[in-house]
C-alpha cells in the first residue's frame, strides 16, 4: 500500500514537472514578455519593509486614491495598484494609510560631477560638466543595467545615501561653478518629486536642467517637468517588443513620451544601446530611424552605444564595431543628421559632423572634447545652423 502511494506521488510529481516545463516552453515561444513580466513583477518591491530604519519621505504626486486605502500610482505607464503598507514596482513609492509617499525624496545615493558628454548629450554646452544625481529604485529591470547597484535595489537595501534638499543640490552646483544639474544613474521618473523641486529652484538660479530617462513617464507629469527642463536624453532600448522584454517593459509608451517631448520643444537626444542578437538587426534599426525621422525630426541626435556584458547579461559577446558602423550608415542614409557612436574610444563617429558640409563640428575622444567648431550656433565652415544649446 505504501509503495503504491509513493509511486502515485512520484508519478504525479513528474507529470507536474513535465507540464510546467512544457507550459513554460510554449508560453515563452508565444509571448516571451508575458512570462518575463510576471517574473519581473514578482521581483518588484511588492513587500513592505519592517524593521528598524524605515525611510520617511515626502508625499508623492500623481496618484489616485481607490477604495480600502488602496492607491493607483499615475506617474508612469506601469500604473501600479499599491495596497496599504506596500510599494510600487519601482520600490520608491509607498502607500501609507491611503497616501502615497516618495521614500527617496532628498536622499540621493550617488552625487557626482561628470562631463556632459557622458549623459550622452552632444548638443548641449559641450566640454562642460554637470552635477549628476541618482537614487535607489527603477521602474525597469534591464538585464544589462550599468547602475544595477542603485536601480535594482530599494533604499533600505542600499543603506547609504546623502541627505540633500533640493536647495543643497542647487547651492552645490552654484558653488562649484557647474552650469547643469542632471538626474541620471537610475531613472528620474522614480524620484520625480525630487527632480521637479530641484528643477524649479535651479531655474530661479539660472541653471540648466537635464535628465536621462527610459521614457516611461506618463504625459501629465512629463509635461509638468518639461516646463523646467532644458534637455532630455531618452534611452530607446530598441524598436521591437523583444528588445523591451529585456527590460520587462513595452515599446509603445516610450514612443508616446518621445513625441510629447518633441512637441514641447525641449531639446531631445536619443541613445540606443546596440546589443548583439537582441536589437541589432538592420530591419529594426531601420524602422527605428525612419520613425525618428518621420515622427520626431531628422535633427534629433541619435547615439548608438557599444554593449559590454554587464549585470545579468553576461554570456553575450560585446557589440562588433561593424554593427555600430552599419547602424550609423543606416541612420545617415535614412536622413538623420546627427548620429554618433559611443563607448568606442578613438572612433571617428564619436565626433559630430556638419550635415551640410561634412566638416567636423565637435571632436570628441570618449567624453573629452578636444575641438569645437561651432560659432553662434552655426557651423564655422559653412554657416549651417546646428540645433542645440550652445550657451
Amino acid at each position, binding site marked *: 500500500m505504501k509503495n503504491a502511494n509513493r509511486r502515485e506521488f512520484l508519478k504525479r510529481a513528474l507529470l507536474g514537472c513535465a507540464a510546467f516545463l512544457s507550459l*513554460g516552453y510554449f508560453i515563452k515561444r508565444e509571448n516571451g514578455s508575458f512570462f518575463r513580466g510576471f517574473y519581473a513583477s514578482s521581483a518588484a518591491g511588492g513587500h513592505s519593509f519592517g524593521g528598524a530604519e524605515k525611510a520617511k519621505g515626502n508625499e508623492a504626486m500623481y496618484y489616485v486614491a481607490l477604495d480600502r486605502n488602496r492607491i493607483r500610482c499615475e506617474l508612469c505607464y506601469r500604473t501600479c495598484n499599491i495596497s496599504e503598507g506596500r510599494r510600487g514596482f519601482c520600490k520608491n513609492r509607498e502607500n501609507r494609510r491611503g497616501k502615497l509617499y516618495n521614500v527617496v525624496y532628498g536622499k540621493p545615493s550617488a552625487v557626482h560631477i561628470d562631463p556632459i558628454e557622458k549623459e550622452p548629450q552632444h548638443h548641449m554646452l559641450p566640454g562642460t560638466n554637470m552635477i549628476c544625481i541618482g537614487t535607489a529604485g527603477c521602474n525597469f529591470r534591464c538585464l544589462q543595467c550599468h547602475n544595477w547597484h542603485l536601480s535594482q535595489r530599494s533604499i533600505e537595501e542600499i543603506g547609504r545615501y546623502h541627505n540633500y534638499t533640493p536647495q543643497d543640490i542647487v547651492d552645490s552646483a552654484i558653488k562649484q561653478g557647474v552650469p547643469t544639474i542632471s538626474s541620471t544613474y537610475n531613472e528620474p521618473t522614480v524620484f520625480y518629486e525630487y527632480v521637479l523641486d530641484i528643477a524649479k529652484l535651479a531655474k530661479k538660479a539660472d541653471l540648466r536642467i537635464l535628465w536621462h530617462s527610459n521614457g516611461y513617464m506618463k504625459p501629465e507629469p512629463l509635461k509638468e517637468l518639461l516646463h523646467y527642463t532644458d534637455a532630455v536624453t531618452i534611452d530607446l532600448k530598441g524598436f521591437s517588443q523583444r528588445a523591451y522584454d529585456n527590460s520587462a517593459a513595452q515599446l509603445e509608451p516610450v514612443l508616446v513620451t518621445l513625441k510629447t517631448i518633441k512637441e514641447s520643444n525641449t531639446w531631445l537626444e536619443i541613445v540606443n544601446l546596440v546589443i548583439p542578437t537582441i536589437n541589432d538587426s538592420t530591419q529594426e534599426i531601420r524602422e527605428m530611424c525612419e520613425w525618428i525621422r518621420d515622427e520626431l525630426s531628422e535633427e534629433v541626435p541619435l547615439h548608438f552605444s557599444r554593449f559590454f556584458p554587464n549585470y545579468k547579461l553576461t554570456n553575450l559577446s560585446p557589440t562588433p564595431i561593424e554593427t555600430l558602423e552599419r547602424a550609423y550608415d543606416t541612420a545617415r542614409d535614412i536622413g538623420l543628421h546627427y548620429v554618433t557612436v559611443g563607448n568606442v574610444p578613438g572612433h571617428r563617429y564619436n565626433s559630430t559632423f556638419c550635415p551640410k558640409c561634412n566638416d567636423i563640428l565637435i571632436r570628441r575622444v570618449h567624453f573629452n572634447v578636444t575641438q569645437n567648431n561651432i560659432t553662434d550656433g552655426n557651423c564655422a565652415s559653412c554657416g549651417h545652423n546646428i540645433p542645440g544649446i550652445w550657451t
Partner: protein
Amino acid sequence: MKKKVILAVIIMGFSGLVAQIILLRELMIAFHGNELSIGIVLANWLLLEAAGAFFLGRKISQAKKKLAWFIFVTILFSLLFITAVYLTRVFKEFLPVMPGEGLGIIPMFYVSFIILFPVSLLHGALFTSGCKLYFVFSSPEKTLASEDKLSAFSIARVYIFETLGTIAGGIILTYLLIPYLHSFEIALIITLLNIGICAFLLEPFWKPRTPAITKTGSFLSISLLLFILYLLFSASANQLHLFSVQQQWKHQNLVHYKNSNYGNIVVVERENEYTFFSDGMPVITSPNPDIVYIEEFVHFTMLSHPAPENVLILSGGAGGVINEILKYDVKRIDYAEVDPLMPAIIKEFSTLLTERELKDKRVNIKEVDGRFFLKRTPNKYDVIFSGFTDPSTLQTNRFFTKEFYTLANNKLACNGILVIGIPGSLTYISPELADMNAMVYNTLQTIYPYVRIIPGDGINFYLASRSPEVEEIGHAEMIERLSAHELQLKLVTPGYLEYRMHPRWLEWFYDQMKGSTEIINSDFRPLGVFYSLVYWNEKFSPTFNHFFKRIENLNIYFVALIISVLSVLFLTISSRTRNPLKPALTLCIFSTGFAGMLFDLILIFAFQVLYGYIFYWLGLLVTAFMAGVMVGGMWMAAHIKKADTGMPALIKLEIVIISFALLLPFVFINAGNLLVYTWFDYTLRIVFLILSFISGILVGAEFPLANNEYMKISADLGGTAGLLYSADLMGGWLGGIIGAVILLPVLGLVETTFIVILFKISSLFTLIILSKR
C-alpha cells in the same frame, strides 16, 4: 557468471564517473563556474545517487528478475545520459530567461536537479542492485560460514570494484576522451560499453531452450549495439552535437567549440568580430577589444613606471593587453596562461591584433600556471599584470592572497609595480563591493608599503610597489611620459588622464569604503572566494543576501556548539530505537563520507595553493585517493573473511581517522616557506600522494567493516547496502556543499579540519555509547 557481474560493476563505476564529470562540465558552461555552482551540481549528483541507492536500488534488489532489472536500468541509464547531455545544452529554452542571461542560485539548483535526476538516480540504484546480484551469483561458492557474512562481503566487493571502475574512468576520461572527443561521442561510448556488458551478461540465456523474452532481450541489445556503432561511425553523433550547440548559442555564429581539461572554449564570429568564450563567459574580443579596460589597465600602470622593460602578464594577455604593452620600449613580455588550448585557438582565429601580439619576438608564452611560473622564474620584472578580476574559485583566489603578493614582491625589480583590477564603480559602491575591495586593499597593504588605488567605472585598479613613486605620481608626469613615449592612444589622452587622476575620485572612494571589512585574504583562509560569492549573489539571487551576511560571522565555537547539540539529540533519539547500533553505524559512515570529501578537498586545495593548477598532478591526487579507497576496501574485505573483527576494529579505525585529521594541517602550514629547497619541493609532492592514498584507505576500509557490523543485526542485504552507500554519499554531499563554499573560505583550512575532527569524535562517542547497549 560472477566474473561477469564484477565486470559489469567495474563498468558501472566507470560510467558513473564519466557521466558525473561530463554533465558537470556541460553545466558549468551554462552556469557561472564559481565555487558555488560547482558545489550545487556535485551536491545534486550525490544526493540523487544516494536517493537512487536507497529507495530505488532497494526495490530493485527485492524484485524477482534481478538480472533483467539490472540490465534494464543499465541501458536506461546510458540512454538517459545522452538525453541529459542534450538537455544541458538546450534547457534555457524552457526557462523564462533571455539568451545571454546568467542564472542565480535557485535556477541553478532546480535545473541541475532535473537534468541529473534520471541519470544519477538510476546509477545509484545500480550500486545496490549490483550488490544483490553479486550475492546471488556467489551462493554456489559456499566458502563462507554464514549468509550475512557473505552479504557483507558482497557489498565490500562491489564497492571495491566500483571504485576500480571510477579510477579507470578518471584516467581514461582525462587522457583519452576529453582531449579528443566531444560529450555526445563520449556518452555514446558509455552507452556502447554498457550495452556490450549487458549482452555479455545475458550470454547464458542465448541458448534456444530459454523463454522468448530474454532471448528477444539479448537480440535487442545486440542489435542496439550495432545501431549505436553505426551512429558512432556515421556523422549523426556530430550532427546532434552541432545542433545542440547551436541551440545553446542561439542566433550566434559559432565557429569553434573545443574542450580541454581546463574547460570549454567557444569562438563566436559576428560581423568580423571574434569573441572567445571560456566556459560560457566572454573573455577576449578581437580585433576590437574593450578599449576602456585595456588601455586603463596597461597605461595607467606603464605610465606610473619610469622605464618599464621586463613585463610579466598572469592570464588575460592576449586580445589587447600585450598589444598595448608593445607600444612601449619593452625588452621582454612573459605571458603565463595555464590552458594551452587558449593560445592555440587564438592563433587559429587570429586577427591583425592577436597576430601582432603573438608573433612579436619579445613575447614569450608560458603554458603553465601563473604562480608556478612566478615561483620558479629567475627574472625580475618591472611590471607584473595580474589579469584575474575575481577570486571566484579556490583556484583563482590564489592570485589575491598575501602569499601571492609576497611572491610577486620578490620578483619585482626595485621600482617594480604589481597591478590588479577588481570590480568597482565611480557611481556607487555597495557594501558587498566595498568588502571585496577592502579585502584586496588590506591584503596588499600587509606586503607593499605603497599602494595606489585608481577607482574606475567598472574596474578599480590597485598599483602596488616598494617605491613611493607609484603613489606620488600625478597626471602631469604621466602626461609627460605619454609624450616622451610618443604614444598615440585612443582613450588615454592628456585630458583623460587629468580627469581620471583627479583626487576627488579617491576621496569619494575612501568615503564609500568606510565601515567595510578589515579581513586579509590568505592562501589557507580563502575569504576572497566568499566575498566574491556574496557579490555575485547580490546580482543574481539577492534574496539570499541575509543568509550570506550571517555566514560571514561564522566562527568555530558556534559550529562546535551545533555539532554537540545535534549529537546529543541524535544519541537520545537513536537510543530509543529497537536497534540503536543501526543509526550509530549509519552516522559513522556518514561522518566518514563527510571527512573523506573534506580530506580530498583540502588536499587538492592545499596542493593548488602550494604548487599551482597543475592539472595532471591534481588528477594523480584524486586517483591516489580512489586507489586508497580500493586498497582499503580490499584489505578490510579480506580481513573480514579471515576473522571476525567486530566493533573494536571499527572503533580503532575511527580513532585513526581522527588522528589523521589532526596531523593534516601541520603538513601544510609551514610547508610554504620550506618549498624554496628543491629536495623539499619533490618530497612534498610525494607526501601529498601518500596522504591522499592514506585518506582513501581510511574511507575505503570503513565501508566494508561497517557493512559487516550492520549485516550482523539486519537480514536485508539490499537495504543495508543502499542505506550505508547513500549515507556515504550524503556525507560527501554535506562536505562538498558546505566545504568549498562556506567552511574553507570563511573558517580556513585549520578550522575546517577541526570541524571534521569534532564531527568524527561525536560519531565515535555515539558508536561507543550505543554499542554498549
